[in-house]
């Protein structure tokens, strides 16, 4: 059947800000879907308030709304835009839940909007646990003994009947939030209470635990001709019990016989048929490792994180095809875009193994509970492709960008056997490394298997790596033979690590292996295991066999380094920048080559760059590609800190880096050199010193004057920053963190003023400030966790002038072209620079969108040598738009326990959203409406608990009065009683600067889903939002038109 001709306008719902369980994969899916619809001549209306996404570009959608993802705002958009159809199965759980609500409230009927793709009934059958169980019973497909409960008593009764352990899965929560495995009654009580509270419908599925079974997933597609195909199956190395998002996963399955593979495949198809899905679907099974017994665990009637992974693992673009199916196409009518000449109705065949490894946030959130279970905790993931499992694991581990030495986590080296067993059995994020450590100590794979149920096939691969580690340790650079070195490389050992073991440099190993002729060969991901020729340029490296890459010589090539896995402090914004970098290079006639390892992203869509190398981002991996491709140079300014950190190694190897040098980066990142530079260009900076030991630290802090900010060198996301308000406190901090503090440490004066941030384009002479953000929270709160507003609302013109002047002085004084970001603080009437980042920042996508200026395209032009005046025709500040854009951080607190939600120098947010209005207060109102987790007071009533340090008391008085006037009750004691009351609306917790007083209360409030405010200024803008009565519903295109009118 051809496409449905009555569809002219389609509304697409995005997934909103990045939170744990809902990350960049939905930007990838949404971008593919929007482009697939546009290709068909359909007008795409998009609503998504996540500004860092590619999908919210004008190239993807015709009309974009950065409005809160609420039923109310979507209803208004439907009313205004009158779409014919709604596509909601590509916007994650957020999109699906909104579609359900729009349907249930009769809005779709009222406006005659057709839900495209999977029908509502199917969504409900997949989502509602009871409906799902009923369907499975009808189909005679086994689900674990389970019950739906709405009460604690119900859960206990069930557990008494079927016995422990019991798994608790709350309904309609993200990433399985609030679930867990209870091995006894007290544990069940604790989990079920939390689970019922977290579930928006106060419902939990409790089931007999089948932990230890193999966890197998299938990605299935179906069209309305009833053609069903499985794109990929995947096997979790971690058996059932750990959320698949937190499991190490391989594709395809490795330990299933054909009988088992086909048995589960057939069931998957039976289920997608019964559900009547049109599009993609994810089906999860538990398979008994000792029989053919299996259970259905879960069905996701939409594209998901796993479908993004399956798309990248196979090359098959699931979301794109799902969008085509939703408008009436059938699989056998669509061409497989990878081969270009076979059809989409087939099942990809892999001739490599794929390893997915989760990236957890515990390096930043050091107090969070690290134990893994049914609740997903990873913020992102990496994928590795190789011809064997061992090398795949190695690639995945080094793609994570965590502090490892090869396959060793240094912090585990000194652990005793029993400490390691604890990590393995309790299963926290370090489990893989703990297993490796045990194997190094001679523990047998059978013992590890007994304790973890991890299949011996996988443990054997781990063991092979340990055996090889030992072989390498017993070898030397002089004695190693060609065959030996080749064996090490085929199993994924890096030059860097081998060099470290042998006490020689990485380049010595590199030279030796090149002498032996040992170089990687790049193979194509072609969906068909080589059966057909393919037209895409999607490659991975392997250390055996022959090259698939056919080098092109007609165009000059430039490499763009991507940003790796999504983590706190380095999110999807850098993917946006990488994608735009590639598109710009392509427009300029270059061949753009992207290197990245994040399977969730648009940058790793084989259609984004001219060539995609799905590889780890280390010096060796990048140099190997450079050796083959011989590019003009490498762009590092778009891939966040990941790319910047490779500059030194690449530069040493003689690679041309665009726009910057290691000297410049060092000048900006090394505090001492930075101060020297600031003095040279005559720009004031926050006083800071470097201390080599604790004594020196204390003396120098006294010299600067308290309060001071303490941090280690080379900062990402504010890791390890602390504020000390007195000598005693500093002594205390230094003593407590004795083991973790690597001297030298940096000590800065702490100036709690107004923080300002600019993104700047420069050709070394002129500058163009693309935008100026004013942060709501005072300096000291990490800029990534602050609410920020552009244009500024409280800054004088003279300060702006000063910003321009200082920025120009800095730009002229350093050896940098392209884009950079500066953070200032305005404190007691003076302006200081906090830091300079020689790269694109998280505010770049926002400015690009609200100003309609392709900042990354400009950056690429600058990097390639154009003058700023040739590009922008203007210098200085960008025109001020006649509307405000508020950027707000979004936290994933509901997914992690043990995290104090206080705003501080350490970044904790996982994503961000924006809201726009010509009325600043309305923009604030929309911001709080959009924030999940009940931080909004809009329209709510109840009581507010306050705990305010005396330093804020006087200032707080006026807010207290406002709250009272608005009808809230203020409570100041009996917290325990208050927090469990139905009245509890908000906790205002304002400890003394640098202190964490009240942490227990804040954590308890999070558990009870009560909003927490820890900064007076946050409260201020929240209340301002509350006062707003205006209501604007404009698309970004309409807002921009207002700027144009103004400029003209």
């Amino acid at each position, binding site marked *: 059947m051809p496409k449905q001709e009555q569809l002219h306008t389609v509304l697409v719902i995005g997934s909103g800000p990045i939170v744990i369980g809902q990350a960049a994969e939905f930007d990838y899916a949404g971008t593919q879907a929007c482009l697939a619809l546009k290709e068909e001549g359909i007008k795409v209306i998009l609503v998504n308030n996540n500004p860092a996404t590619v999908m919210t570009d004008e190239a993807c959608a015709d009309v974009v709304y950065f409005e809160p993802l609420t039923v109310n705002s979507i209803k208004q958009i439907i009313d205004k835009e009158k779409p014919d159809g709604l596509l909601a199965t590509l916007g994650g759980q957020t999109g699906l839940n909104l579609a359900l609500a729009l349907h249930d409230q009769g809005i779709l009927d009222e406006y005659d909007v057709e839900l495209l793709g999977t029908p509502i009934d199917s969504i409900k059958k997949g989502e509602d646990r009871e409906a799902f169980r009923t369907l499975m019973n009808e189909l005679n497909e086994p689900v674990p003994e389970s019950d739906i409960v709405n009460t604690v008593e119900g859960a206990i009764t069930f557990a008494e009947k079927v016995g422990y352990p019991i798994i608790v899965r709350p309904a309609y929560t993200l990433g399985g939030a609030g679930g867990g495995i209870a091995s006894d009654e007290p544990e069940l009580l604790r989990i079920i209470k939390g689970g019922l509270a977290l579930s928006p419908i106060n419902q939990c599925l409790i089931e007999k635990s089948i932990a230890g079974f193999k966890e197998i997933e299938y990605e299935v597609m179906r069209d309305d001709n009833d*053609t069903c195909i499985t794109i990929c199956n995947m096997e979790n190395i971690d058996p059932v019990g750990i959320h698949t998002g937190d499991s190490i996963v391989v594709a395809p*399955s490795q*330990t299933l016989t054909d009988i088992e*593979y086909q048995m589960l495949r057939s069931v998957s198809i039976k289920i997608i048929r019964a559900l009547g899905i049109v599009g993609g679907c994810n089906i999860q099974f538990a398979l008994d490792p000792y029989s053919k017994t299996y259970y259905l665990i879960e069905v996701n009637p939409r594209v998901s994180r796993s479908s993004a992974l399956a798309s990248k693992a196979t090359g098959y673009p699931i979301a794109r095809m799902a969008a085509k199916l939703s408008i009436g196409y059938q699989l056998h009518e669509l061409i497989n875009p990878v081969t270009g000449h076979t*059809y989409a109705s087939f*099942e990809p065949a892999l*001739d490599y193994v794929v390893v997915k490894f989760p990236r957890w946030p515990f390096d930043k959130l050091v107090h969070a509970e690290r134990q893994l279970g049914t609740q997903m905790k990873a913020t992102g993931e990496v994928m590795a492709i190789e011809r064997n499992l061992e090398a795949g694991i190695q690639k995945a581990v080094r793609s994570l960008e965590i502090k490892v030495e090869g396959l060793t986590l240094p912090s585990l080296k000194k652990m005793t056997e029993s400490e390691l067993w604890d990590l393995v059995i309790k299963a926290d994020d370090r489990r893989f490394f703990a297993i490796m450590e045990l194997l190094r100590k001679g523990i047998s794979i059978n013992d590890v298997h007994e304790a973890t149920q991890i299949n011996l096939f996988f443990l054997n691969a781990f063991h092979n790596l340990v055996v090889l580690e030992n072989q390498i340790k017993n070898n030397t650079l002089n004695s190693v033979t060609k065959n030996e070195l080749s064996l090490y490389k085929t199993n994924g050992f890096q030059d860097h690590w081998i060099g470290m073991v042998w006490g020689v440099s990485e380049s010595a190993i590199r030279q030796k292996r090149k002498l032996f002729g040992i170089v990687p060969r790049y193979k194509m991901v072609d969906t068909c*295991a*080589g059966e057909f*020729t393919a037209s895409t340029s999607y490659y991975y490296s392997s250390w055996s066999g022959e090259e698939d890459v056919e080098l092109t010589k007609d165009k000059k090539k430039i490499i763009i380094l991507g940003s790796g896995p999504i983590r706190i402090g380095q999110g999807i914004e850098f993917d946006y920048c990488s994608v735009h970098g590639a598109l710009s290079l392509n427009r300029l006639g270059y061949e753009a080559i992207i290197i990245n390892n994040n399977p969730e992203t648009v940058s790793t869509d084989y259609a984004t760059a001219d060539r995609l190398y799905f590889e780890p981002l280390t010096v060796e991996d990048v140099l190997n590609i450079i050796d083959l491709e011989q590019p003009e140079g490498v762009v590092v300014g778009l891939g966040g800190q990941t790319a910047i950190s490779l500059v030194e190694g690449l530069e040493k190897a003689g690679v041309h880096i665009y726009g910057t040098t290691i000297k410049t980066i060092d000048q900006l990142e090394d505090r001492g050199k930075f101060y020297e530079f600031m003095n040279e260009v005559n720009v004031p900076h926050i006083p800071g010193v470097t201390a080599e030991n604790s004594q020196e630290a204390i003396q120098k802090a006294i010299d600067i004057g308290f309060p001071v900010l303490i941090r280690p060198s080379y900062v990402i996301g504010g890791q390890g920053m602390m504020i000390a308000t007195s000598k005693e406190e500093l002594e205390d901090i230094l003593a407590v963190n004795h083991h973790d503090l690597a001297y030298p440490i940096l000590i800065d004066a702490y100036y709690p003023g107004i923080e300002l941030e600019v993104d700047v384009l420069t050709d070394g002479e002129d500058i163009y400030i693309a935008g100026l953000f004013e942060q709501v929270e005072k300096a000291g709160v990490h800029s990534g966790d602050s609410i920020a507003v552009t244009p500024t609302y409280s800054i004088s013109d003279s300060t702006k002038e000063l910003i321009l002047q200082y920025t120009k002085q800095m730009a002229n004084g350093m050896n940098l072209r392209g884009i950079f970001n500066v953070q200032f603080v305005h404190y007691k009437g003076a302006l200081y620079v906090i830091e300079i980042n020689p790269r694109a920042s998280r505010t770049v996508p926002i400015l690009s969108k609200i100003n309609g200026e392709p900042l990354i395209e400009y950056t690429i032009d600058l990097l390639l040598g154009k003058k700023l005046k040739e590009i922008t025709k203007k210098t200085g500040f960008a025109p001020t738009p006649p509307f405000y854009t508020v950027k707000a951080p979004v936290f994933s607190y509901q997914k992690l326990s043990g995290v104090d939600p206080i705003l501080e120098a350490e970044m904790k947010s996982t994503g961000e959203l924006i809201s726009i209005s010509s009325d600043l207060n309305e923009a604030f109102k929309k911001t709080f409406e959009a924030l999940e987790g009940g931080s909004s007071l809009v329209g709510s009533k109840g009581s507010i608990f306050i705990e305010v340090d005396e330093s804020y008391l006087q200032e707080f008085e006026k807010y207290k009065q406002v709250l009272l006037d608005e009808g809230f009750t203020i409570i100041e004691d009996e917290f325990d009683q208050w927090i469990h009351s139905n009245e509890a609306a908000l906790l205002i917790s304002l400890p003394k600067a640098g202190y964490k007083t009240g942490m227990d209360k804040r954590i308890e409030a999070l558990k009870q889903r009560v909003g927490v405010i820890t900064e007076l200024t946050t409260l201020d803008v929240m209340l301002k939002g509350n006062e707003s009565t205006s209501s604007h519903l404009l698309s970004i295109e309409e807002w921009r038109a207002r700027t144009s009118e103004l400029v003209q």
Partner: protein
Amino acid sequence: MKGYIVLETGEIFEGELLGDQKQVHGEIVFFTGMTGYQEVMTDPSFKGQMVVFTYPLIGNYGVNHLDHESKHSQAAAIIVHQLSNQGYHYDANNTLSDCCKENGTPLLTGVDTRAIVKRIREKGDMRAILTTDLKDVDFTIIPNLADQDVVAEVSIPKKIELGSGDHHIVLLDFGYKKSIVDQLLELKCKVTIMPYDSSFEEIEEMKPDGVLLSNGPGNPKKLTDLLPSIKKIAIRFPTLGICLGHQLLALAFGADTEKLRFGHRGANQPVIDCVTNKVYMTSQNHSYVVKPQSLEYTGFTPKFININDQSIEGLLHKELPIITLQFHPEAHPGPSDSAHYFTDFIEMVEKKGREKTYA
């Protein structure tokens, strides 16, 4: 020890040779399914062929006593990228390498299998020699598989009777897979497996309700002597042909077959049923296809078409109860999406039975 695959083109690929270390030759083909190496190596259709597995990790779950498609390994050699020495599976009673050793099947591991696949893709399925001594390679004395009588090597010498049931099906054995019999038994058929060269009279004597012409190795045109008898059988009894059986039925009614440059071998071949417009993922293993333009005057119409290359994947006779399938509805390895064509065949058998009663 080191072993080499020498292609007809002269190109050499190196690997580690396990198992029987004699020199062997055969037609080199590749299989793209990611599971099912045990089913593949024991499938008699692979007689005379060296199988290159495109999936790089082979042997992971060992070999068990349940999943054999015939009593022993049939392939001339197995060529893999990386062999798993252990078979980690509760069903496994052997490792793949030991199984190959016991069956005398050479196993070459550590081979750049993707490169061989690319050669086959470009040049087609071709002759190859597996050797430990490159000096000992001589293609002039090596026959083409197309000229060999391989069916005779795999077909049973005398008939076997299995099961009991309402329908008696004669399975004419050109190298049948056990799964075909399993499917028939599951449908409550009495099955008599008969040698491939059984005469029409011998078959008629069995009073079958239907006849199934099995899959098998090699070139269908090597069996032209049998075509008249096959035609008589198909006119007389409701008939299902699978793979080689399909090709023989086409030839028997006057159609022609030709060799594909490289065969369809895998678990992901898309086929459309032109009658119902339904699309199936099918398991396939064949080098030869029926030429579409040769179907005129045969009474056959194409019922199934391969979506990727539009080749014929099955036929329906306009008047007679004959259905033929180029793909493998019995699966093993591969998807069983099309297993219901066995049921269709049995329904055809039943219908014919009713006609007989009423007549």
